């Protein structure tokens, strides 16, 4: 930007010409300068505009990290440690997208990780065995899911106030604004699932 200024040579100002005519043009230049500075500052809109908020689903990011740890740090009976390791998400496409993006190419032990999204819990019936099922359902629907996998070594994970009571083995809870989890270890043992020590040690219950 070319700056026009008071006393600048561009307009014959300075100590060199001091007649009235130039004095008048001096004032014009002053006004122009003010406008230019305003225009310049006005052009700083990029700094006046508010910043963009990151739209990522933070709770799903956190849950995805936990789910991967739950899959990787627990032990299933030997006969279920072959073939793909299946992790089913019911009704949370955002969580599924994050998990797929971050962990789809990873392995659980020697098993390749398969991440599946189901729109509805009813669709579970048509699905092959899943090592981990995550659902945000509660109450009767969660109980139904739990019954449908009864006696199977399936790690059912929920995010509901009545999660553990409704049959989930791990339930996400909010503690001091953080996402934590509680575990029903007794039920896990019944299902021959060995919950890892690290997972147990961080559980709130």
């Amino acid at each position: 930007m070319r700056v026009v200024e008071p006393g600048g040579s561009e307009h014959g100002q300075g100590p060199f010409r001091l007649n009235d005519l130039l004095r008048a043009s001096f004032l014009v230049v002053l006004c122009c300068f003010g406008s230019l500075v305003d225009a310049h500052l006005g052009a700083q809109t990029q700094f006046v505009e508010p910043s963009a908020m990151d739209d990522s689903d933070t709770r799903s990011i956190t849950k995805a990290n936990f789910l991967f740890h739950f899959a990787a740090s627990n032990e299933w009976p030997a006969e279920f440690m072959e073939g793909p390791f299946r992790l089913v998400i019911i009704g949370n496409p955002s969580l599924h997208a994050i998990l797929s993006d971050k962990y789809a190419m990873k392995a659980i032990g020697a098993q390749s990780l398969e991440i599946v999204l189901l729109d509805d819990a009813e669709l579970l019936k048509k699905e092959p065995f899943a090592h981990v099922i995550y659902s945000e359902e509660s109450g009767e629907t969660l109980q139904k899911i739990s019954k449908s996998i009864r006696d199977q070594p399936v790690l059912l994970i929920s995010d509901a106030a009545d999660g553990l009571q409704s049959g989930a083995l791990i339930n996400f809870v909010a503690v001091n604004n953080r996402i934590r989890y509680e575990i029903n270890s007794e039920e896990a043992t019944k299902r021959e699932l060995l919950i890892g020590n690290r997972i147990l040690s961080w559980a709130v219950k």
Partner: protein
Amino acid sequence: MSTMNTNIRSFLFAGLIVLSAIGSSVCAQGEVERATDLGQLGKWTEAKQVLEPVMASSAHQSSGRSWFVMGFIHKELHKSQGEFGADAPERLAAVSCFQRAIQLGLNATDRRMAIEALDFLARSYFREAIAMVEGFTWGSTTDILSLYGRYEALELSLNPQKDLSMQRSDLNRYLGQAHAMLLESPSTRPAAELQAIFQEAIDHYRAALEGNENDYATQYNLAITLYNEGVRKLKGIGHETSMFELMEIQDGCITLFEQSLAPMQAAHAQQPNRLETLKGLMTLHYALSQKDESDRYRAQIEKILGNR
């Protein structure tokens, strides 16, 4: 007789001194005029060559007009050479010459012009500082603050009562956002550098609020920068992150989200129906696992959108 001789000698000696002073003054005036003529022709380098070597003489040292003309020469050279930076020598010299000229005394016209020239030079520091923020690069903050410092000192020398807190606040807000933009742009910067950039952004926003605590944009941008940093850390978690690290990172993120809440609420208090702050509060409460609060803001957004 000898007394008379002594008086004559003294008179002649005094006359010699007066003549020498007049001669020196006339000579000095001539040099100033020659420099002025060269300036009129745009020959600033030649004008400087005429005046600068003789500025050390007592006639020029005590002449406000000489310093005034010298000030213009330096100013024009500063412009023609495209100098930049807080320590640009021609600009510094111009400032110093004009200040000295005013101190020594000038006629009313010259004095007004010297003040206007100083004001121009002050603004040139400010413009340069802003231009550096526009093309901001990591590490240039010191230079920007030096330029702004020169602007502030010069403005205050012209008008000691001038309140520059808004300008300082604006500059800090621009710097805060410039740093925040570095964080948002894709880069391969090491983690320590990213952390330092983030801290600078936050510090500048907070400094901006000290001068203008009710500035909506600063409050909102501070909240967003804190929140986005939390999200950035959360996204950094990978399959190799241990359970302990995961918990620790989550704690750090939640602390940032919690810190973000106060400025977001302050921005919202100023413009309660602004969608971006409502969305900000909805998102923040969601991130803090406060579903009811998040839903309350979601309902407000839906209500506003429904009324459009």
